[in-house]
């Protein structure tokens, strides 16, 4: 079959102003405009959104889940967390 399929788009929805866009799912559409219309019809039927981003799935670059060392170095650096430091209780909340 040499018929071209509609490409896949990743859909991001901002549920209300003040919050960031969040991945909602994906869908097929001929172009970005249609992807936004379809996203409105499937992902915001109950007022779930005030803004939509669409990104062609093929344009998403992802980290490699098999790369064991990718997130390794942060694991041992507990001194990056506030609880690592001892502050006397008398000082109050810090």
């Amino acid at each position, binding site marked *: *079959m040499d*018929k071209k399929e*509609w490409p*896949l788009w990743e859909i991001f929805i901002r549920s209300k102003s003040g919050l960031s866009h969040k991945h909602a*799912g*994906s869908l097929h559409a*001929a*172009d970005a405009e*249609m992807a936004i219309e379809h996203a409105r019809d499937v992902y915001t039927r109950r007022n779930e959104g005030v803004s939509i981003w669409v990104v062609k799935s093929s344009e998403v670059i992802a980290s490699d889940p*098999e790369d064991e060392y990718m997130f390794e170095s942060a694991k041992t650096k507990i001194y990056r967390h506030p609880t690592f430091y001892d502050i006397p209780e008398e000082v109050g909340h810090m």
Partner: protein
Amino acid sequence: MDNHNNIHSLEAKFEAKIDSEIKIEPKDWMPESYRKTLIRQISQHAHSEVVGMLPEGNWILRAPSLRRKVALLAKVQDEAGHGLYLYSAAETLGISREELYQQLLTGKAKYSSIFNYPTLSWADIGAIGWLVDGAAIMNQVMLTRTSYGPYARAMVRICKEESFHQRQGYEILISLSRGNAEQKKMLQDAMDRWWWPALMMFGPHDSASTHSEQSIKWKIKRKSNDELRQDFIDATVLQANYLGVNIPDPKLKWNEERGHYDFGDIDWEEFWNVVNGNGPCNKQRIKDRKKAYEGGEWVREAAMAHAEKRAKRKEEKVA
């Protein structure tokens, strides 16, 4: 490390994730059989949502009031969305949408056999919402905790939308239960026809279910067919009593000792007969899906051609 060892360590890692309730995501390594099982189950689920629109669509133009019509229309629209969420989840496993459609249209893939029964009266629309969506909800609530991330996320979204489906169906039946003798008869007739097929939705007995055991081990499923069926019956009897409708099972009886309802034997011959293509509407359903697919072909092509033209025009402007 040689290849053989490699596979073993990947498998061990996969199983460790399953054991510690870490979801499997699309790019993670997974056994081929896990992938295949998921594609089969998720696509079957997607096809069910899509084919499930047909028996209900049959009544949209004949809904008895505007209130009922907008509700049914919104419900059927939701089911289309459910189909989409699930097809997308299946596609993350490396199968294309086109291939999934073809599997449905050629009969290679199955869908829930409940949708091969006809909707003969308006009461059937109530019964579908109450019993069919009710049974689906039992299954889908369990699947929000399935081990494959995209499937679980699709299920969370679907479950949020399902609750209204069951409620609008039950409300239809409440109206009928308070109606005249003819309406009450319609209600009972729908109950008589939908009760057993609804119980069959959970699939064969655990002892006869080929995929169940492995699916539970992989935490694709969290409860067996028989457990889900029992949960459904236990939850539904009270709702039937409120409607004053008779459940067509003389063996249905509360069992104090088990803390569950006992119920009669399911007609598995009927079940397999419908699964194997000989239900009242199997041929009609596939015919309708084919008609929609083929009828939409020129629209899909025209949209693509339009998009390409528009992209080219933009390019020319920039240049």
